[in-house]
């Protein structure tokens, strides 16, 4: 960012600056060409064919701008379980340890809180907030030490008493050459384990944008990442499940080897969702048809699926499945328990993909061997769900159609209680330098409005494609937030959000002068959205400000039911 010089022109009605570019803010500004040359001689990277990379995204550029070399001393935590991180790590030298079970206590891993304002800091917003819209301190865009997403050096925590940890916790070694963290970086999911340095170690931290490019332009990295992605995810997923959690490592491996890994729908479903919706169409690939005979248990690993039953001339949504939910256990169990029974053992409901869904198909033979002998007869959930009236299911049907089921902190307003006073909007503006971060406007069903406020989705598709990683999960709470310092205003996130909850705004300097690109004089834009008042005291101001309790932030999984 050093080359981005801020020029203030007091006589002009404009404020100019260099337009931020991809790699304008490298992951680590201390990375040098020598570092890149050194990395290219490392065994894990030397075989990558640089010629396969496009000219505008050269391999050297990726290594210089999307990676950084981090050194860890024994006991230093590299990643913490539960954190949302946007980086993967390649071990260049040294050995690390991953804590498998039980997890380390929260206080021992120094889980940091988001920086919230002090009481005085909150109060001082009364006079520090700017009366002019979307003003910024433009000098902050020129700081070299800005970090982009991912982990932060200053947040490092050192584990105390490592021998005791090794004694009390089941750990595994991660040796030189290993790659880890790619699952969380690419899958937009929290870290599943805590990893710390067992000895002096040197790691290459690759932010997810770089990882994405390496995967896209190098077949070996693609194969390695995909294979590891499947293997690691599958084993972990099976172990987390109710059905397979009791199995030992060998049995899990056996189950994993016999499972079929399936993917339905498009990874970038959000790009066509609104268009198809406006045309009254939907793109929901069928995973299982009602009436078919099941050949295995379907375990949803990521994404969402719609469970339906035929109703009249249409289909009725009775449930939706997300990560961790299973489909088809009941008929499979019946077939195993009563192989000669004459009752219909076909699927009583169908399953279709909502957007992108990862499914693990566990063959019936595996279930017969490892699961059915150890479980009580599963409950038939279809019967109870089917008995609900169409009217009772209307909200669920609508929420699934609109994909609001993705929301974890969705702003819903009870219009029967809302007096349209806009206190919520004013409260939001008061906490964001005078700029509201949502619109009291949105889709309505019955007396509920889903306002245009970031829903902090389970699958935040807005994070896909951000060239600088400015939009990221916060370290605590998992809120999706935008780092204004590193946002280049490209609009990728705003275009990706299927709910139109991200806005691009033209920024002004503290005097209210519009900030424009020094070369083209086109406005400098920044993406803005609800951050759930992550830096404010007391949580979302909109909820607290509603005088009639009409506004709520809800997890749509619970709300729709």
């Amino acid at each position: 960012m050093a080359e981005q010089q801020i020029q203030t022109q007091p006589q002009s009605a404009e404020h100019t600056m260099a337009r931020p570019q991809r790699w304008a803010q490298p992951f680590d500004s201390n990375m040098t060409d020598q570092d890149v040359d050194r990395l290219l001689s490392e065994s894990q990277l030397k075989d990558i064919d640089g010629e396969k990379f496009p000219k505008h995204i050269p391999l050297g550029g990726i290594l210089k701008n999307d990676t950084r070399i981090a050194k860890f001393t024994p006991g230093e935590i590299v990643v913490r379980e539960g954190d949302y991180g946007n980086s993967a790590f390649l071990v260049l030298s040294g050995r690390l340890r991953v804590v498998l079970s039980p997890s380390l206590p929260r206080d021992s891993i120094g889980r940091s809180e988001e920086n919230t304002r002090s009481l005085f800091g909150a109060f001082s917003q009364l006079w520090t907030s700017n009366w002019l819209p979307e003003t910024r301190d433009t000098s902050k865009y020129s700081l070299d030490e800005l970090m982009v997403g991912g982990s932060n050096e200053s947040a490092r925590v050192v584990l105390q008493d490592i021998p005791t940890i090794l004694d009390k916790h089941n750990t595994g070694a991660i040796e030189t050459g290993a790659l880890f963290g790619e699952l969380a970086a690419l899958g937009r999911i929290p870290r599943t384990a805590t990893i710390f340095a067992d000895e002096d170690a040197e790691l290459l931290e690759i932010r997810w944008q770089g990882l994405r490019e390496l995967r896209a332009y190098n077949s070996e990295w693609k194969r390695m990442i995909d294979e590891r992605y499947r293997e690691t995810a599958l084993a972990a997923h099976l172990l987390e499940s109710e059905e397979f959690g009791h199995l030992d490592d060998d049995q899990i491996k056996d189950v994993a080897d016999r499972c079929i890994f399936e993917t339905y729908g498009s990874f970038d479903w959000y790009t066509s969702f609104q268009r198809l919706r406006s045309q009254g169409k939907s793109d929901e690939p069928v995973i299982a048809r009602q009436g078919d005979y099941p050949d295995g248990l379907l375990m949803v690993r990521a994404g969402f699926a719609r469970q339906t039953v035929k109703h009249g001339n249409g289909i009725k949504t009775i449930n939706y499945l997300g990560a961790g939910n299973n489909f088809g256990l009941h008929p499979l169990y019946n077939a195993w328990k009563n192989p000669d029974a004459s009752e219909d053992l076909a699927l009583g409901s169908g399953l279709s993909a909502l957007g992108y869904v990862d499914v693990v198909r566990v063959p019936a033979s595996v279930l017969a061997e490892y699961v059915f002998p150890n479980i009580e007869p599963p409950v038939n959930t279809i019967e109870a769900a089917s008995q609900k009236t169409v009217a009772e299911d209307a909200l669920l049907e609508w929420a699934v159609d609109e994909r609001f089921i993705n929301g974890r902190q969705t702003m819903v307003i009870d219009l029967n209680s809302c007096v349209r006073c806009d206190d919520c909007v004013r409260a939001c503006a008061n906490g964001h330098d005078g700029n509201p971060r949502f619109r009291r406007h949105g889709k309505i069903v019955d007396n509920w409005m889903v306002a245009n406020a970031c829903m902090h989705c389970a699958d935040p598709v807005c994070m896909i494609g951000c060239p600088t990683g400015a939009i990221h999960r916060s370290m605590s709470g998992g809120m999706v937030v935008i780092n204004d310092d590193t946002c280049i205003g490209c609009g990728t996130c705003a275009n990706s959000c299927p709910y139109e909850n991200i806005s691009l705004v033209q920024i002004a300097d503290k005097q209210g002068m519009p900030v424009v690109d020094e070369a083209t004089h086109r406005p400098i834009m920044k993406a803005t959205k609800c951050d759930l008042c992550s830096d404010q005291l007391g949580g979302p101001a909109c909820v607290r400000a509603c005088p009639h309790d009409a506004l709520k932030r809800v997890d749509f999984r619970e709300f729709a039911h």
Partner: protein
Amino acid sequence: MTKNISILSIFGVIALIVVGYNAQKMDLNLQNSSVLTGYTLIAVMLCVALLNTRKKLSMIPLGKASSWVVFHVVGGLLCVGLFWVHTNTFWPRGLYEGFLAGAFYLVSLSGIFGYLIQRLNSRKLTETGIEVIYERIPLELREIQEKAEEYIRECTEATGSDVLANHYLNTMVWYFQKPRFYWSTLFGAGNAKVWFRSEGASVKRYLSSEELDYFQHLEELVELKMLVDTHFVHQNLNKKWLLLHVPLSVGLVIMALWHLLLVEVYAL
């Protein structure tokens, strides 16, 4: 919220009984109970008036605004009781006290009125099936009028007849220009529909089938405008009553403090 108001009201009634009982006891002991009731009244009034400050300080964790509203409603009602206990009459003697009582009753009545209309208006707005932000209503109305005029132009060009255009200019443009039938819409009397049936649609018998198609579009726009007008009227009232209630409250607090000062200096 109604439940919370009911629960807090019980405490309000208890508080009123305690103050009333002690005031009576003081009177029986030939003490001046007005000091107790007066100071209690002004203390509750000041606490109730803090709601507006709470709204301005939304960035500080001062509890949910809805809890404050519950306290505001119950505290306001308690003030009415305390006022009667304090004055021992419906209307006190003296010119200044008369003004003070008038302001007090106006604030109380406007508050009760505001609370009731807000509860009723929310449902009425929801029943329209559309949602319009108040500040955008002029823009929405302008868009509806522009669409109507577009249909009229198209109709004239397509049919070569100016019957509908003349009717629009002579009769209907009045309706599209701004919100109409304010009081009728407020009380749900449906005068807009009656007007459209009797005057707006009177042109139908002179229209060809092709022109009738355009008129049907116009009818749809009239129906949409009725909904937007409903939003305007009810949202307008939701905001306007505060213009009476809040300045009056400020005035009342100032007058009450002046009253307190006069009493402290000259009467006690």
